[in-house]
């Protein structure tokens, strides 16, 4: 009886992961190609930038906020970094000098970071709800980026940029190392700094955090700024992987990132969520998508499957906290 209860609890608490493992095994049996190395390097490659986005948005969700501007920010970051990394033959802005690859990434991160500051300012100091503030920024960034690029594609990249996706270190390409680096930094911020602890405190109970002397406003601005920097970097990473970007790069990625975070266990009501949550969520999402493709599921039906997974995952997750009371 007790054992049965334990087993049920285990299933409920790890429902998503169990579902994923089952799906992977079934797919592997039906389509042996699924287990080929090439497939997995592809999945991990896509996961790299998805993880960076999810880690950025996780910070916002932990404070019981959200960030709808992520997708458009990614597009802007991608174009911004891209214009500094084109071959001389086909530059979008011929007068613009080319920058070293890391510096271009830094430019994208800094510009996006400034915009994130603005979003955060409205949320923290003017009490605009995050949903609205980030939606406004989403519109602004799209407009700015469309004017900036004239809605034309940015491509024809220098080799040094594309090499990030081609060259490997210890069997993993550089983009994956970048993502791992960001994950490590985020883990450090979440667990080893005041800022991270303040973030959890604000998510747990903003009034109590304020009474305890937490600088709530500054912390919120920093969180949205940091998130926007991550989106800029993710845009830069997508450019290296795709070889060309446009204003529509990253469109809708914010929703997938929010979904991935919540599937992994970042609570939308605030206060809960770890780096591993974002990682698990992104992994579940990407593996699921690939598995469905391998099984030959209709492309549109895949969306239905993803929606169903979100329902199941979130219901199970919320059950954990509700049952405790």
């Amino acid at each position: 009886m007790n054992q049965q209860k334990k087993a049920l609890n285990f299933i409920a608490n790890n429902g998503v992961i169990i579902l994923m493992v089952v799906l992977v095994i079934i797919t592997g049996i039906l389509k042996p190609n699924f287990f080929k190395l090439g497939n997995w390097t592809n999945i991990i490659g896509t996961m790299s930038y998805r993880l960076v986005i999810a880690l950025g948005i996780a910070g916002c969700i932990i404070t019981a906020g959200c960030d709808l501007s992520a997708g458009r920010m990614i597009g802007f970051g991608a174009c911004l970094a891209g214009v500094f990394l084109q071959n001389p033959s086909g530059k979008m802005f011929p007068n613009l000098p080319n920058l070293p690859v890391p510096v271009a990434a830094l430019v994208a991160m800094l510009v996006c970071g400034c915009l994130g500051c603005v979003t955060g300012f409205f949320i923290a100091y003017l009490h605009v709800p995050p949903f609205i503030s980030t939606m406004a920024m989403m519109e602004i960034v799209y407009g700015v980026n469309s004017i900036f690029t004239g809605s034309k594609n940015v491509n024809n990249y220098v080799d040094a940029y594309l090499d990030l996706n081609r060259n490997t270190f210890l069997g993993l390409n550089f983009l994956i190392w970048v993502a791992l680096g960001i994950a490590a930094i985020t883990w450090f911020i979440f667990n080893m700094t005041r800022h991270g602890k303040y973030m959890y405190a604000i998510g747990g109970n903003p009034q109590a955090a304020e009474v305890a002397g937490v600088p709530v406003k500054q912390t919120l601005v920093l969180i949205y700024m940091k998130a926007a920097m991550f989106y800029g970097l993710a845009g830069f990473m997508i450019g290296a992987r795709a070889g060309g970007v446009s204003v529509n790069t990253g469109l809708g990625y914010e929703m997938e990132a929010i979904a991935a975070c919540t599937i992994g266990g970042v609570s939308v009501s605030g206060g809960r969520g770890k780096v591993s949550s974002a990682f698990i969520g992104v992994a579940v999402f990407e593996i699921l998508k690939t598995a469905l493709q391998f099984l030959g599921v209709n492309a549109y039906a895949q969306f239905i499957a993803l929606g169903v997974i979100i329902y199941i995952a979130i219901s199970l997750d919320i059950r954990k906290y509700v049952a405790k009371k």
Partner: protein
Amino acid sequence: MSEYLLELKGVSKSFPGVRALDHVNLSLRPGTVHALMGENGAGKSTLMKCLFGIYKMDEGEIILDGQKVEVTDPDDAMSKGIAMVHQELQPVLARSVGENMYLGRFPVKRYGPLKVIDHKKMYEDTKYWLDQVKMDFDPKALLGSLSIGQMQSVEIAKAVSRSAKVVILDEPTSSLSENEVEALFRIMNDLRDKGVAMVYISHKMDEIKRIADDITIMRDGQYVGTWSADELTTDQIIAKMVGRELTNVYPAKKGTIGEVVLEVNHLSSIHERSFQDVSFTLRKGEILGFGGLVGAQRTELMEGIFGIRHLSSGTIKVKGKEIRIKKPSDAMKAGIGLITEDRRGNGIMGCLSVKDNVGVAVYNKFLKAGFILDHPAMNKVVDDSIKMLRIKTPNMQTHIENLSGGNQQKVIVARWLANNPDILIMDEPTRGIDVGAKHEIYEIMNDLAAQGKAIIMISSEMAELLGMSDRIYVMCAGKLRGEITDKEQMTQENVMNYATQF
């Protein structure tokens, strides 16, 4: 037809750990205003909620018009002619007066099979009932645009429109201006002439003397008695409200009282109805009690000192030096800590661990290289305070929401002790915690005072206030009404006298 319109007989109600009502009686004569009096927590509101069907009584009966009735819920109460005007009955502020009056019973008209709301009739009827209570504002105005007094008139008009025979008014004047009080009394007099029986809960003695016909007094959930209003003087009412035996269960205090550490001069809130022109001093090693009724603005005053609320004027001196406090961290730098009254609302962070709940106020003190948290050092501090305060928790990673109220409170105490403040403000420190934990909190307070910390304790529990304080200030309606320094003078009657000087 019996003498009484409504009788409550032998009503009892228990909540986990408390007997809120113990065989209470109340008899209302038609066409009278019946004042229901008692201290905070005497059970007045609980009794009314039982009558109105919000709570289910454990024992007792309701006799309406000589007939025994059961009230199952507020809607049932309304249909039986019992209405309640209560600030906690949340109206829908963003909708019109008319919609609020007819919420849940909108007049409808039919277009064939389609039922639609008859707005015209609704607003005409609203206008009619507002006229009945001599109020002439627009039925289409948003409820939120009205003053609190006007909203109450809407509630009363609603009661009249449902031909209520019994109207309960729970502290209706606590946030009204003098003109609004006059308007309310005029309506009440009209209702009295129409034979309506009213229950009037208030602490304001002069109002009681003016409007009440009968007075029922309650104390600690017990029925004390019912008198005709002209039989009792104000002093007699107070004596009956507080006349309990005090047993000394409070631990003895050691240590001496030293120099002044906190001096507050003419502090006023930006809100007229909140604390105004409050001056007081606090000494080292002292436990300073703040007494008063709920709504006396004691919490607001302390939150003002701590930088949570805005001040319009006044100064705060800590150890002789004037400081400006704009936010809690300023107060913390000056050596002040605040344990808030509403533990769930702005005390604990439920989904975080015990350690994080202690740590949140002291991360600045545990940094390596200026930005890396020193977890081992923090663990030691948290571990020490768990032992010192005897916090019952499986370990420091346990989520605080899984602890009992008393242990949660100790965690909050640990949070502030880790910050080592000179001045600790404790707002209702033992609210909602069991007797054993209460005693432990008292001992902790005495220990802290003996170590030379200065403590301000807000307490609405008379026994605790008298038992723990070295000195007591009593507030009423935002103003400091009295200071009691002499232990001999620390009596329930004296505190209550100051507390009801509106």
